[in-house]
């Protein structure tokens, strides 16, 4: 039987506020352990939380950018459970009345279209602390610096069908968060986190299968790999006539498998109730409009602008603007070398290919826009050919050197000296007198062969236009 997967994602985004959500401690990543802490975030008796206005504003921004309805009233609730990273014995979150509901984003489909992924809800909550474990000793260590850092939890409907769609959805969310400048989107450092609810069902079925929750996927690649593994695992379970167990499973990137947390999981009974220490949040239409006015250009708007302003294909514009960092990179290159189509060709081709091979994000691109612009200048001035440029590009990417330096060091300057080239052409033709005869008898497609031989003799450094001219003259 053919099965289809049904995936929903729960995404947690750390907000880039200066201070924590309910107290004035620094919300910045890192610091000596337990130095960004105070009685409020460590849950000392008698301390009272006060909501950070900026965190609410950021949440409203995200809600607007994802087409959500913003609740006029929302409430903070206590989610009760015991774990050493949670000093109060509860996490302040939102439950019955979340800040925003019923939104959607669009993800690109393989056929060039769009697919709408519905967002169930977006709510605000506080992050928990961080745990370190002894390698072999009997202890764990708790650092509460992260406790109380504001988070948005963004919950999707089970609209995703493949690991690729899940990763694409996550990319779209990250792009929006980064464009809004409310989250840095760093999955490795954990400022963007993702859990997935996965189930499979017979193709075409309407009811949902039993789901497993997959955690611990801290890069886009891991999300795709973990989901692919989990779907395959569930398919096998069903094919054997067994039932999927509803449970939490951890992705193990080393082994490439998801594994049951068996028993380590707490009962999912959080006994939510409204937090009496926090008054309800009432978001007025006026506040929403104020925030709306301050919204920056979002990915789709920027894409449309790129098509209009730079006359690049919609497809290219879509890919380049799908990451704020990449779009910024592109615009910086175009500013330095104002031939937008050329720039987009190199970014879409060689740059993205090299980044993908290295499994790197644009943020960590070793090649600065200045280097790419400098190289494009060299092509334009006829100093290097487009073909040589590819080698220059890779060398710059690898070594971080400037275009001119690479060209000089490796002697890649294009041969544009007509006499020098003529001599080389002459040698090639002498060496291939049979082909020359055949050509002269009408086998004209050998022309390309001669060009190729000259290029080979010059290690690709001959100016192609000049080679053509000389060959045509000599073969007449």
């Amino acid at each position, binding site marked *: 039987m053919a099965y289809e997967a049904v995936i929903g994602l729960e995404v947690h985004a750390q907000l880039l506020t200066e201070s924590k959500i309910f107290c*004035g401690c620094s919300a910045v990543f890192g610091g000596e352990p*337990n130095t960004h*802490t105070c009685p409020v975030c460590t849950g000392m008796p008698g301390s009272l939380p006060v909501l950070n206005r900026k965190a609410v504003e950021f949440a409203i921004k995200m809600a607007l950018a994802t087409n959500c309805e913003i609740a006029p009233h929302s409430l903070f609730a206590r989610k009760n459970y015991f774990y*050493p990273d949670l000093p109060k014995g509860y996490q302040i979150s939102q439950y019955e009345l979340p800040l925003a509901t019923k939104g959607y984003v669009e993800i690109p489909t393989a056929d060039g279209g769009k697919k709408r992924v519905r967002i169930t809800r977006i709510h605000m909550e506080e992050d928990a602390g961080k745990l370190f474990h002894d390698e072999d000793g009997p202890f764990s*260590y708790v*650092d509460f610096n992260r406790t109380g850092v504001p988070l948005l939890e963004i919950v999707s409907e089970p609209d995703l069908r493949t690991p690729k769609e899940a990763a694409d959805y996550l990319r779209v969310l990250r792009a929006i968060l980064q464009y809004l400048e409310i989250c840095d989107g760093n999955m490795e450092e954990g400022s963007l986190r993702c859990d997935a609810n996965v189930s499979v069902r017979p193709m075409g079925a309407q009811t949902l299968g039993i789901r497993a929750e997959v955690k611990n996927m801290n890069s886009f690649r891991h999300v795709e790999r973990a989901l692919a593994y989990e779907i395959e695992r569930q398919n096998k379970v069903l094919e054997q006539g067994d039932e999927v167990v509803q449970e939490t499973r951890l992705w193990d990137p080393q082994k490439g498998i998801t594994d049951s947390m068996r028993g380590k999981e707490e009962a999912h009974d959080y006994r939510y109730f409204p937090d009496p220490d926090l008054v309800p949040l009432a978001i007025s239409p006026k506040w929403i409009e104020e925030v709306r006015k301050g919204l920056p250009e979002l990915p789709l708007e920027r894409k449309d602008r790129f098509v209009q302003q730079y006359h690049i294909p919609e497809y290219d514009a879509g890919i380049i603007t799908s990451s704020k960092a990449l779009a910024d990179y592109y615009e910086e290159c175009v500013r330095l070398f104002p031939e937008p189509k050329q720039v987009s060709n190199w970014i879409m081709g060689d740059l993205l290919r090299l980044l993908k091979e290295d499994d790197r994000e644009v943020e960590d691109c070793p090649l600065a826009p200045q280097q790419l612009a400098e190289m494009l200048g060299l092509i334009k001035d006829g100093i290097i050919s487009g073909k040589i440029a590819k080698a220059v590009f890779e060398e710059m990417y690898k070594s971080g050197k400037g275009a001119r330096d690479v060209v000089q060091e490796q002697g890649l300057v294009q041969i544009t000296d007509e006499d020098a080239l003529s001599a080389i052409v002459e040698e090639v033709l002498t060496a291939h007198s049979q082909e020359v005869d055949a050509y002269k008898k009408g086998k004209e497609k050998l022309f390309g062969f001669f060009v190729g031989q000259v290029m080979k003799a010059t290690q690709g450094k001959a100016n192609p236009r000049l080679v053509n001219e000389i060959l045509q003259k000599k073969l007449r």
Partner: protein
Amino acid sequence: MKIEIGEVEYVGRLARLKLSEEEKELFTVQLNAILDYMEKLNELDTSAVEPTFHVVSHRNTVREDEMRKSYPQEASLENAPDKAKGCFRVPKII
């Protein structure tokens, strides 16, 4: 009886409370009395009453996003039953 002793034990477990057999009996009776009282309140027609989100009528008590001085590490760890490496130390939980 709305709740049985088993539910008292379950709630006790969730709250990490160690309850004696006498206490379990006692709390079962007491919790049922509370639920009975709620039942009584439910007899009132509240269809025309706005839900009470909070007992005080304030809304939006917020602060600006300004960083304030945190406690020094020693102060944060002062009441910790066990500490090391600048952290609260707990039995291994992995």
